[in-house]
Structure formats: C-alpha cells, structure tokens
C-alpha cells in the first residue's frame, strides 16, 4: 500500500526549477509521460478551447447549479485563455506541466466546476456513449434483431460481476432496438423491465407480464396468471401481428427458490409454439443457467449466455478518460488515473469503485486547499507583511490554485478505499484487550481452532504473570470478551455457563502481530 505522501512531494513542484531556463521549449526528457501531440495542441490553443466550450454549453446539468447560467464557465475559460497567452512569457513552467492535454487546468475553488466534475464522475450518470462494451452490446442486439425479424421467441442470459456495465448496456440496447424497429418499419416490441428484488411475491412476475400483454383483459379468478400466459402462448393468435414482448429481468437470482419452479416456468415460456416473448435475464453467477435450468438443456432451448467480464486496466482508463473528455479542464494527472485504473482492475474490475475512488481523490484535494487557505488566512492575520513581500505569497497562492489531482491524492484515496480498519483498531484498543488478543494468538498458535472462555482466561492470566501486570477479575474479562465480540474480532458462542462459551478468533493472527509489533511490550508477549 503506498504510504500517504505529503503534499510537498507533489511531482509538479520538483519540475519547476528545471524548466526555468528554457521557457519556450518542451523538454522531451520530462519525467511525466507527455503525449507527442502536445505541441500541436498548444499552437491550436484557442481553436480547441472553443469547441470544448460549445460542447459544455450543450450539456446542461439537470440539477440546480450554484452558478446558474451555463454561459458563465465559458466566460471564465475565455478569460483564462487570454490570461494564458499574456503570461506565457512570465511563468511558462507552471503552464507547461499543468497542460497535459492542452486544456486549461481547473479552478478547484469554483463550486460550479466542482459540481459539474462530480456529476460527470457520479455512478448514476449514464454516459452518452458506452465504451468498452461494444462486442457484448452487439451480440445482444443481434439476438434481439433475429428474434424480432423471425417473430420467434428466445431467451438470453447476461452474467457478470457487479459493476461491469450490464444494466447500462441493456438500456442502450433497448434504445437501439426502438430506433432500429422504427427505421425498418417493423413493429416495435413492448418493453417490460423489472428488478426482481422489488417483487413482494415471486409469482407476481407473471401478473406483471400478463398486465403488459393484455392490459385490457381482466384476470379470471380461476386460472393463475401463469396459466393464462401459457394458454395464450399455446394457441394461434387471432389477431396476427401483435407485438413481441421484450422482458428484461434484473437480479434474476432473487427468483431462485428451493424447487426453482418460478425460474423454470419463466424460461419455459419461450418454448411454447406460439410464444411471443424475448426474455433477457441478468445476474451475477456465470453458471446460473446450468445449475438451475437443467431441464431446458434436454429440450435444446438453453438460453444464450453473454458474459460481461470484469474491466481490465486499459478499459477502466479509457472509460474514465471518456467521462472526463466532456469537461473543458484538466483535472487529473494522467498517472493518477493510471494508478487508479491499475489498482481497481487488480482488485475487482468494478467500475463503480473506480468512479468512487476518483471522487474521493477530488475531495482530498478540496480538503487540502481548504486547509491551506485557512492556514494562509490565519498567518496573514497574524503578521502584517509589508507590501513587496505579499507578492511571493500571492504567487504561492496562485500556484496552489491551479493544482490538479495528483498521484499523492489518488494514493490516499486508494488506501482509504482498500484499507481495512482492523490494524488501526487493534492499535487503539485499551491495554488489557490487547493482552487478551495476545493470549488468544499464543493459545491458537498450537493449531487449535477454538476454545472456551475459561481456557483463554487461564492463558490470559499466564501472560499477565509473565509481564508482571495484575490480571483483571473474571467479570471484567467476560465483559472485555463481549466488547471484542461486538466489534467482530472474536466470536463467542452461547452457553448457559459463562465460562464454557466457545470462542474463536475472527481475524488473522498475522494482523494482530503486525499491529502490535511496534510496541516492545507486546513483541515480548508474543514471543
């Protein structure tokens, strides 16, 4: 885990003295990876900014922005660009290393910019173009197209880890289908999408399908909705040319019961001779179709499986850049984005996590700026600086103003996301509870898996004797074990007699050893 880097070790400040001699050149031996297109972009500076500005004006936030008019950021950027051209001779090194993609760097103090940025990176914002899922979308789209063209029913199973873009891709495919059907002049299929967690009763899914198919027909009391649909699909339609129904069932594993009846019936609906539904199920398990629908294989109508694999590092990086491309400012250092993508891809490949980590990196930057602003204002209040000396302070202030999210912020955000609080908690436990943990580690070192409280008490008293600390009484020992149980460090069983309650460690003994290694007292204890 990268340690928390101090603010001063930001890579930007290191570069400044090197660059001051040659202001107009772009040194190719730059430590940070600069794209070779940089020179071109700088010469086309105003042109690039104009197109970006126009795209920003089109993209309005649906929510209330504190800077209400969408034109105001444009004015700021124009001012910024003019300032840039003025200052090119004055402070070129600063602009150089902030201008990775040719865009001006953002102003972290502008609330409008912050809210636009956070919205671009929010999990609930659906991007206009879904990248890195073109293959999967194409497969689903082709399947639905074939079903509609041939007026045949079919079933499809979409699976993948959480955060891999399944529901998002389904929305896009649905839109595509509607457009395509209109274009080809075919009848647009009825869309029914539901989340199986919101069903109070599992068989309600059939009444929902009924409602979609035959909204005007009333359900007879005698036949259940399932039987109605089955009857419907086994007879020739009177009115030919009725629409197909596209059913998308999200979180399909909530429909799994012990006898798997509902799931079977749902997929069997597509096997009836005159069935008109296209069923698409979404879940996490890869082998759901094999494990829970064995009968379908014998009937040779197993659903087609589309697997959404976890995102790789390049895919995550591409998606993040795509989201940030719409903004006219540079916010992230490219290596910071790469670090985030690498770490998230190695851990789970979950896109939501990557977006969360980026947002918390922005918040860390905000926190830093607030702190430095409050320090600066307090120091300015304390000592009255004479006028020529305020210039370097303002210079420092301006330098911080154009700070972008760097590797150190991203490293802190990643460590917060992936760090477990166990080591910190063990280090801050009171002394006797730490000794109980030491006694437990020593006791379980012999290979035993669990014990009773009475035995642990004996071990604890031995530890106390060896370190000359008076042990606490049984009642306090019991209450300390209970506190550790509440926190999830130990696990206590139930028993009428307190001393015979079963007990085992829920955390790794290595974690405890690591947490307490800094204190010599416990190092000796654990010897």
């Amino acid at each position, binding site marked *: 885990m990268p340690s928390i880097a101090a603010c001063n070790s930001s890579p930007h400040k290191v570069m400044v003295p090197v660059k001051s001699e040659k202001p107009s050149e772009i040194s190719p031996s730059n430590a940070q990876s600069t794209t070779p297109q940089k020179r071109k972009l700088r010469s086309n500076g105003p042109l690039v900014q104009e197109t970006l500005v126009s795209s920003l004006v089109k993209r309005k936030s649906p929510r209330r922005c504190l800077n209400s008019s969408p034109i105001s950021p444009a004015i700021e950027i124009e001012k910024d660009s003019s300032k840039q051209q003025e200052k090119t001779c004055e402070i070129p090194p600063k602009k150089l290393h902030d201008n990775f993609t040719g865009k001006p760097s953002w102003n972290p103090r502008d609330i409008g910019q912050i809210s636009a940025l956070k919205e671009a990176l*929010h999990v609930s914002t659906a991007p206009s173009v879904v990248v890195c899922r073109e293959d999967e979308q194409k497969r689903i789209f082709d399947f639905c197209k074939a079903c509609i063209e041939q007026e045949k029913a079919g079933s499809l199973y979409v699976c993948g880890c959480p955060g891999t873009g399944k529901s998002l891709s389904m929305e896009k495919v649905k839109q595509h289908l509607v457009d395509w059907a209109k274009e080809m002049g075919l009848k647009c299929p009825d869309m029914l999408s539901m989340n199986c967690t919101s069903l109070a009763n599992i068989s309600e899914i059939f009444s929902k399908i009924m409602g979609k198919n035959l909204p005007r027909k009333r359900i007879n009391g005698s036949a259940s909705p399932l039987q109605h649909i089955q009857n419907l699909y086994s007879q020739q339609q009177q009115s030919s040319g009725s629409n197909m129904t596209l059913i998308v069932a999200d979180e399909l594993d909530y429909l799994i019961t012990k006898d798997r009846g509902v799931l079977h019936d749902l997929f069997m609906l597509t096997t009836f001779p005159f069935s008109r539904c296209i069923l698409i199920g979404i879940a996490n398990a890869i082998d759901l179709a094999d494990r829970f629908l064995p009968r379908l294989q014998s009937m040779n109508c197993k659903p087609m499986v589309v697997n959404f694999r976890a995102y790789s590092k390049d895919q995550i990086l591409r998606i993040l850049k795509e989201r940030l491309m719409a903004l006219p400012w540079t916010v992230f250092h490219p290596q910071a984005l790469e670090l985030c993508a690498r770490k998230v891809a190695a851990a789970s490949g979950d896109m939501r996590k990557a977006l*969360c980590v980026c947002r918390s990196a922005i918040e860390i930057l905000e926190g830093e700026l607030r702190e430095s602003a409050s320090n600066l204002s307090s120091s300015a209040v304390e000592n009255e600086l004479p006028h020529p000396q305020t210039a370097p302070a303002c210079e420092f202030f301006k330098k911080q103003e154009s700070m972008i999210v760097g590797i150190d912020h991203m490293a802190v955000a990643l460590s917060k996301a992936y760090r*477990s*609080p166990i080591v*910190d908690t063990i280090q801050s436990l009171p002394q006797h509870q730490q000794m109980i943990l030491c006694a437990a580690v020593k006791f379980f070192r012999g290979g035993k898996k669990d014990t009773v409280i009475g035995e642990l008490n004996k071990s604890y008293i031995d530890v106390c004797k060896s370190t000359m600390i008076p042990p606490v*009484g049984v009642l306090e020992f019991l209450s*300390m074990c209970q506190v550790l149980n509440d926190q*999830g460090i130990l696990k206590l069983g139930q028993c009428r007699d307190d001393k015979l309650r079963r007990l085992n460690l829920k955390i790794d003994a290595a974690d405890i050893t690591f947490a307490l290694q800094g204190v010599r007292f416990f190092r000796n204890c654990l010897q």
Partner: protein
Amino acid sequence: MGFQSQVEKAKNLLRTRLCNPNFIIKPLSDSPDSNYCKLKFTISSSITEACNNSILLVGPRGSGKIAVLELALNDLLQEYPDTISLIRLNGLLHSDENCAFKEIAKQLCLEHHLLFSKMSSFDDNSQFMIAMLRECGLAHKTIIFTLDEFDQFAQGKQRLLYSLLDAMNTVTSQAVVIGVSCRLDVDQLLEKRIRSRFSHRKLLFLPPSKEDVQRLLEHVFSLPTDSSFPHDYAAQFNGKLQNLLADDRFKEIISSYLDLNSTINHLVRFLFIVVSLWESKSGFLSLENFKSALSSIQRQPKQECIKDCSILELYILVCMKRLEVKEQNSYNFNSVMKEYRSVHDSFQTSDYYAWDVCLRSFERLIQRELICFTDNRAHGQSVEFRPVKLLVSYVELQGGLKSYRSCPIILQKLMDH
C-alpha cells in the same frame, strides 16, 4: 449565596454536562481532522452538489458515533432548514424489509404531512418510497437515511439495502445513506452487488488519545467564569482543578481505568460516579473522590464475599481448590472432608471441627453460591454425596485470603502448593 448552595449549583451543572452527549463530544470535534468535520463535509457536499452518497460509521460501542451524527445533523438542519428530510431506522427493529418499508413510509408521511394508512402493502410502500425519492429529487430536497445497527440489516437477503442503494443510483434522486455499526468487518457481511453500490467511505471512531482525554476532563469540569456563577468560587475551583489534572497520581488513576475500556461512554460513567461521591462539605473536587470512584467501580463481588466467610468455610474452600488442582474432576463433601483430615494430620492445625459443624458451613457456602452442585437433579441423594464444584476462581480466592482480617498462615501456604 452561601457556600453550600454554590457547591450544590456546581454539582448540578457538572451532572447536567455529563448527561448531555453533545457537550461531551464537542472538544473532540473541534479539529478539522475530526470525524465530525469529515461527516459534516460529506453530507453538506451531497446536499449542495445534489449527488447521492453513502457512508459508514464504524467503532466500538460507546465511542460517540450516534452523538457525532446527531451533532452533525442538527447543525445541518439549521444551516439548510427546508432541504433535508430525515428517516431513522434501527436494525434491531426494522431488519425485516416489510417492517422497514412500512416505517420509511410512515416517517415520510409524517415529514410531508400526508396520511399514512396501516393497510398499505409492501408493494405500495416501496412504490411510495421510490416516488417520494423522485419528487424530492426534483424539488431539490435531500432525504437522509440513518441506519442504526447496520450489521443487523446485513442479515438475510438484504433486500432493503439493495432497494435503497439501487434507488440512489438514478439521476433523479437525492439521498444520503448513513450506516452506523460496531462491527469492523460490516462491509464483508454485505453481498457483493450491494458492496459494489455502497461507496467505500468509512469513518473509524477510535478511542481518544491521552491528550484528548485531558482536554475533555478540563472541558467538563471547568466552571464558567461568567455571571451565572459566583466569580471567586469558580476561580478557586478551576485553580484546584488545574493542580489536580497535573498531578501524576491522578493521571495514573485515569490511565489504569482506561486500560480496561477506553471508550468515551465508559469514561463519562466514571466521571458521573466521581461527581456523585463528591461530598458537599468539601467545596472542591479532590483526588480522594477519584480514588474512591475507581474502587467502587472495580469491585470484585466474590472476593468480598470471601472476606465475610468464617475460618472453617475458608478451610473448606481451600481443600476444594487442592482437590481440583490434583485433577480430581468430581468430588463431593466426603472427599473434601478426607482432604481436610489429611491437612489436619500433616500440619497439626488447631482448627479441627466435627462432621456436623463442617456440614453446616458447607451448606452455608452453597447458599451463598460460592460453591454449587454440578448436577441439577436432587434425586434423593443427601448433600454429602452429590458432586460439587467451586464457583470462585483461584485468583479470587487468593485475593480474598490476602485481604482477610486474620487469615491463618497455613491457608496461604496451602494455596501456594
């Protein structure tokens, strides 16, 4: 006013302060690095930027999680009066999703002055919640869900959590979900799709450091020097307080108390006992109050019971201990008497009593629950033949013997064997 009434007024003030969690948590929440500031910043940025957020507060029981949350929410309710709706759920009461949705619907109805019908079904309630989220999102109102005992919600199918977090994934809703739990591994209990939707933000509530404890004590015990209190008395009290806080013995008492359980709640309970033991005769808090409070909290009831035993009863207990050490797993009164006789033979003690007398003190020990029968049935067997066991541990027995007023030395020697 008279001296006594000043002291009474001071006592009342201190007791009121100790019972008010907001007051206690304030000195620990001042620094910008504290959990209070981080929590407030997260919630207020979600409100102003109109985005959804979720956060988890984790820490041992009594470390001030709910107090900090209440403080932050009160401040935010004052800052943004009309833009916040608060829904509180508790995992011990509402872990079943039917109950939870009913409660959410009820609280939403109360907040927005709508009528709530008890006959509404689960479906109705969940549709209502989703509709309210959408409406409040359009009206730029944020709904804050507080889930207490969050680990209880993570049992079973976790449908409530899924519905809440999924509803937050839409662009139109504006909600903040705050989970409070005392389990460190609570996010491992969540299903992976819920963990993916829950943001990884966690605030860890650690026990206060020694400097924080000093600051807290000063904050709680300093009398105000404004007009509500007589100035001379307050100044004198504060001066004596400063001396006390700098005393090494005082620091030792506090740290030995916090070695067992260092949460704030525990410390506040101790301070309350200190104030209660403060007599009105002495006008100021002294070290003696703290010492007597410590000893009154750290009582060993069984050891005190042993102090009241007679010498014969002590002999019986020590004999039973020797039998247990000799790994005789089950023994009864007869075996104890055999041991007693052998002790008398080897050491020629002067305390040798008859069988009936010993039986009577044996029964008294049973009544006092220092020993008990190992089996619960009393099938006609008399007391002498039923197996018994000790209910005090050896450490307690030794401690009791040490503090006994005139313990025969032979007993202590027997214990050491």
